[in-house]
């Protein structure tokens, strides 16, 4: 009897130890860095401040911290280019593809999963329909980036900032609205919605999120009064020809104009708005040209992506390649939103920029990202959702 008791106690203890060991292993999976992991990066933009900052973070920080090798595509102009670049990645033994190009994401996912290559979306999100189709695909890692509601709110907050300062005459630079780029349309809609709220009016008889549909109908923003606020000018597109620069200049010099709200890169207005006392707000990235403009008072508000924002999606991809995919309880891939850092003074901008441009101590360091390796979906989501500058600094 004693023997049996002893044996039972031994087996129970052994089982507990084994379970504990398994639990510990599950909590802290081992990161095997013996083999170099090649990751392809699809890019449709190679020259913007944002694209360069992202690339610098991957190549000058992440690549030095982990045994990974990033392989970049050329500047992509269409879905055929994306397919060709992915073929090239596969031929070069890339184990995963991180995409910053959005011409045809379902096709990218299908191509990668067909070749057994993991696929992730950086600084962007899939549409609901696309996500439904891809969420259980074992090779689809997920997407982290500003979702369209975040874009809407970013535009809203930008306009509200100046409305709260008592500004009433605005011009909007619509960026890629004529090409029906969703994020630019949502940002502009947010701006107009804020004007409707504060100006106590409506935009083409619409308020709030109904404005989104109005912009989609026109492919442009209509000028005119919104209650006691007025949109006095609008320019869209990136034609970069004489007529386009003329329109930009004309808009910046509109009589009574107080603020230019740019849904995208607003640096082309810096020269045109000089000496006119016009304030400029832009959505872009933390870059040297914006630093100068902020210090000169030419730029007054920036909602910028920070370069390390693509750190978590790298870790999710790396984790999946190493056999620890991050999935929710139903086995679905990541779908997380992440917003912008907002600077409204040169001092704030410089504080953010110092961290964002650092290659030694960037916003998301190796120590922080290591904690995400093989983590639970909830832990991962909690980490990504704390994206403001202060929240990230608080994690260090």
């Amino acid at each position, binding site marked *: 009897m004693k023997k049996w008791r002893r044996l039972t106690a031994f087996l129970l203890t052994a089982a507990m130890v084994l379970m504990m060991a398994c639990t510990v292993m599950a909590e802290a999976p081992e990161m095997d860095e013996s083999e170099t992991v090649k990751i392809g990066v699809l890019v449709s933009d190679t020259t913007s401040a944002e694209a360069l900052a992202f690339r610098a973070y991957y190549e000058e920080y992440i690549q030095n911290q982990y045994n990974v090798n990033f392989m970049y595509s050329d500047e992509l102009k269409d879905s055929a280019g994306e397919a060709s670049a992915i073929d090239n990645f596969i031929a070069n033994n890339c184990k995963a593809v991180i995409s910053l190009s959005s011409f045809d994401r379902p096709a990218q996912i299908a191509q990668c999963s067909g070749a057994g290559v993991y696929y992730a979306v950086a600084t962007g999100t899939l549409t609901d329909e696309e996500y439904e189709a891809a969420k259980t695909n074992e090779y689809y890692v997920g997407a982290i980036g500003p979702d369209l509601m975040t874009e809407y709110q970013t535009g809203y907050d930008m306009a509200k900032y100046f409305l709260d300062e008592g500004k009433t005459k605005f011009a909007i630079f619509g960026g890629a609205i004529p090409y029906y780029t969703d994020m630019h349309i949502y940002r502009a809609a947010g701006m107009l919605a804020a004007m409707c709220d504060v100006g106590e009016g409506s935009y083409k008889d619409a308020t709030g999120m109904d404005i989104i549909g109005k912009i989609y109908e026109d492919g442009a923003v209509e000028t005119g009064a919104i209650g006691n606020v007025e949109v006095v000018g609008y320019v869209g597109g990136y*034609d970069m*020809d004489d007529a386009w620069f003329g329109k930009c200049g004309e808009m910046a010099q509109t009589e009574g104009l107080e603020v230019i709200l740019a849904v995208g890169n607003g640096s082309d207005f810096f020269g045109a708005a000089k000496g006119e006392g016009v304030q400029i707000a832009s959505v872009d990235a933390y870059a040297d040209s914006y630093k*100068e403009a902020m210090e000169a008072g030419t730029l007054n508000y920036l909602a910028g992506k920070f370069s390390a924002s693509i750190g978590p999606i790298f870790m999710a991809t790396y984790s999946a390649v190493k056999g620890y995919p991050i999935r929710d309880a139903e086995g679905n891939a990541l779908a997380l939103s992440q917003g912008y850092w907002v600077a409204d003074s040169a001092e704030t901008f410089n504080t953010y920029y110092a961290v964002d441009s650092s290659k030694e101590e960037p916003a998301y360091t190796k120590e922080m990202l290591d904690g995400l390796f093989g983590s639970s979906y909830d832990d991962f989501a909690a980490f990504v959702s704390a994206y403001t500058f202060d929240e990230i600094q608080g994690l260090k």
Partner: protein
Amino acid sequence: MKMTKRLFGIFTIPAAVLIVVLAVSRIQGVALFATEGNWVSFFRSVANVMLVTLALSINLNSGRFDFSIGSVALLSSVISATISIQYQLPVGIMLLLSVVLGAVFGFLSGLVYVIVKLPPIIVGLAMALFYEGLAFAVTGGYGVSFVNNTELVGFPSVRNYSLIIVAALAAVILIFDYTKFGYNYKALLSGQKVSVHIGIREIPNTLICYGIAGALMGAQGFITATNTGTIQMTLNFGSIGAMFAAFLPMFIGGYIGRYINDKIGCLLGAVSMGLVSLAYVRMDVDSSVQQIISALLLVCFLIFLNNEQKFKNLVKQGR
């Protein structure tokens, strides 16, 4: 040729463009030149188009289609702006630097062409990629920003653009119409083999042509840079687009050149396009509509040039 016929030939196109543009803008209830900014915009457009048109036509007249001129403008303005910011040089020196560097890069394009002896289109494309890449490397891809430099961004004005237009036009007329190089250039245009046989040295002439085209594009790059206070990078032939704005004014210039110096023809072609461009601005014409109008204008003018005699006969029959 009768003076009246000459004047008619010289001014018909710009005057017709002006009348049409004024009429349309009046119908739209818009004043074409309402503010000083409109004048600045018009003169900038004229200067830009004239410089690119001259740069393009210098080589194209000789059968050399140079796709690298846009990248020459980009690279020369990037380097001149970087040096000017670093050493706090005045705006005039930046312009001079940009012109000199443009001449050097243009000359290098020509040198590669005469050495490798490949078709000029291929060499032009290769040099465009090379210069775009070089500009990207020089700035680390971040471009150049000098929005804080009030002198540099304060350059755009009617007076300054007029000075550039007059200086560039005078220099080109002087070089091509009053020097031995210019006579040789014209001789090579009219009969390459014969000219070479009589002792005209074709290669130095070609190199100088590339150099002058580069210098003009250096000035154009300077104008573009000082307009915004930033120079943004472009890769994968992104700089080529700059030259497409020059085709219609070049054909117009060629037509007007029958009645007056062809360089002045280019200026009048640029003035015509400047008026059209300003009309787009003042009437807030959508970019897709702009492209359709510009393409139609080009096609219609080419149809006219190719069927000129038929049109004249029709007019005579009508009388």
